[in-house]
């Protein structure tokens, strides 16, 4: 089947691109200023101890050899040990990733659904007041500066109203209780999620609404929309069955890529809300010269973005019958 062949070809391409990204990242890290040892070396250490540590971390070898070790380890599923935590990078990422996915993927999906739905509705009333107000509102949301709105959310939701927690993902005092049930824990996470989620929703929602609206307006000039009118179809049928399915196509690309980037997208949000996810870990790793951890995070992001591209392309084939592989 041709779709199978297409996917295999794309996977091969992706492997090559991934290898290039790996290589570039590896050498970039070596060019970066700062010395990972300086973070670990105790002033009380002797010179010999320092040398042993350097040896253990493999930092004494020439860069080329280090690169080969790095690649070799990668293919054996060893992504290195975090300098800071002293634990395997893979395990740290595996711990943080679900938190990020929970928050960001949910936020992107919710805002995409809401944005396309409202974008579709208001495109049908173009030029009237509701359309203008909502469009300007969406533009404002779209251009909001994320850290600012995040701080504002905290100030209002957590400080002023006192309804929501200021930081974190869980309330330790609840989770430590042996009688705490799973629904209680889930509710606790949801309660912590509301503020960061609202922030992300606001930021993404506006752009999906604008994309969907302009895509709808473009679709409305198509001949088949005239045909649908001439056929005497009611307006809501024209909108939902003829205009929207066609207008949705460009939005799919945008949502797919946002989903991919949402894995890391949270550096700022996660930092402001102290959400224990990949983004915050990445910021921490980079500022502390934790090469293996930072590399691991970056490679994960690269892999997810590449995979999301493939998924979007395959999905397109289902949404648009004209596309065949």
């Amino acid at each position, binding site marked *: 089947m041709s779709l199978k062949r297409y996917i295999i070809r794309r996977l091969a391409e992706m492997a090559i691109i991934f290898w290039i990204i790996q290589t570039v990242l590896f050498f970039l890290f070596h060019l970066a200023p700062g010395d990972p040892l300086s973070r670990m070396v105790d002033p009380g250490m002797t010179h010999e101890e320092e040398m042993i540590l350097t040896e253990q971390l493999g930092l004494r070898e020439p860069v080329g050899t280090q690169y080969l070790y790095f690649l070799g380890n990668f293919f054996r599923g060893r992504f290195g040990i975090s300098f800071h935590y002293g634990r395997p990078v893979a395990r740290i990422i595996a711990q943080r990733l679900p938190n990020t996915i929970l928050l960001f993927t949910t936020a992107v999906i919710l805002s995409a659904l809401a944005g396309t739905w409202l974008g579709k509705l208001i495109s049908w009333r173009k030029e009237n007041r509701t359309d203008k107000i909502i469009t300007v509102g969406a533009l404002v949301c779209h251009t909001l500066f994320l850290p600012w709105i995040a701080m504002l959310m905290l100030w209002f939701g957590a400080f002023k109203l006192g309804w929501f927690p200021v930081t974190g993902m869980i309330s330790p005092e609840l989770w430590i209780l042996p009688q705490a049930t799973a629904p209680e824990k889930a509710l606790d996470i949801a309660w912590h999620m509301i503020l960061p989620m609202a922030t992300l929703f606001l930021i993404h929602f506006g752009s999906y609404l604008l994309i969907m609206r302009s895509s709808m307006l473009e679709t409305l000039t*198509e*001949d*088949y929309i*005239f*045909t*649908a*009118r*001439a*056929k*005497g*179809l*009611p307006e809501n*049928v024209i909108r939902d*069955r*003829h205009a929207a*399915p*066609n207008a949705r196509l460009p939005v799919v690309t945008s949502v797919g890529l946002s989903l991919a980037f949402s894995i890391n997208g949270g550096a700022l949000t996660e930092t402001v809300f102290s959400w224990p996810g990949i983004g915050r870990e990445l910021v921490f790793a980079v500022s502390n010269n934790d090469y293996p951890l930072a590399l691991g995070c970056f490679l994960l992001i690269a892999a997810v973005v590449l995979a999301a591209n493939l998924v979007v392309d395959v999905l397109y084939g289902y*949404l*648009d*019958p*004209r596309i065949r592989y």
Partner: protein
Amino acid sequence: MQSLLEVKDLTVSYTTPAGKILAVDRVSFQLEAGRSLGLVGESGSGKSTIGTAILGLLADNARVETGAIVFEGHNLLEADQETLRRLRWKKISMIFQAAMNALNPIMPVGDQIVEAIRVHEPEVPLTAARQRVADLFRQVGIPARRLRDYPHQYSGGMRQRAIIAMALACNPRVIIADEPTTALDVIVQDRILKTIIRLQDRFDIGILLISHDISVTAEVCHQIGVMYAGQLVEIGTKEEILTTPAHPYTRALLEAHITLSNDRQPAPVPGPAADLHRLPEGCRFHGRCRRPDANCRRQTPSWHSLSATHKVLCREAESNGN
């Protein structure tokens, strides 16, 4: 006897950035059941605007200034949107140009026709509607198994046939065919036109055929109207228009079309097409006319009847007729 469809004194204007223009200027004609009228003219002559005005689907910047469109005794220009919507396709349907994107690219062709049936006849069950579409496909010469295919999987000729099948789906009284064969090669064009003629006979439909090609209207239509710069300039039976054309523009159009039957070279209509923003005084055609006189530049021509069915908007006919 009352006509099936009567257009009376229809004037439609467009507001453009360069000013307001009259795309259709006091056009009147009648269409009888089972007959066909061809409207022929260059692009910009207003012929397509008449088609969209009948369906009440004029563009946002268009406005009907005067006139009436009377269908089965009701003036469509006074009907509300919901009445018009119910009437569209059920009573008056349209054959679009297949080269255009007239079919939704991401919906199977059969479904697009079934949809029209189900909207106007909700009592028809889905399976019956599908069966009807399969029958229609057979009528226009498409295998019924192609119902599930998407428009891009069809050839140009097949798309045109599917669009004709779609126009017939609700047994309409009138079909407006806007350039139904443009962009098809001559052989396919001929087959499509024959299909249209055959179906018209069978279903007793009134057809308004809009084309820039006078030979297409000559093949299909009982009556031909010639349009120039928004005005109807001559109307008559096919025989009258082809054998005794009275308007210089009609003659020029007849000379311009290509024929295989004799050695005559096709002669293009001289001069540039009319600019609706800067219409000349007097007769609109005088700048391109072969025998204009001084009065043509000053006086607006009026209608002259040459027979019960044949009339022309030209001063020359006046002098010849008397």
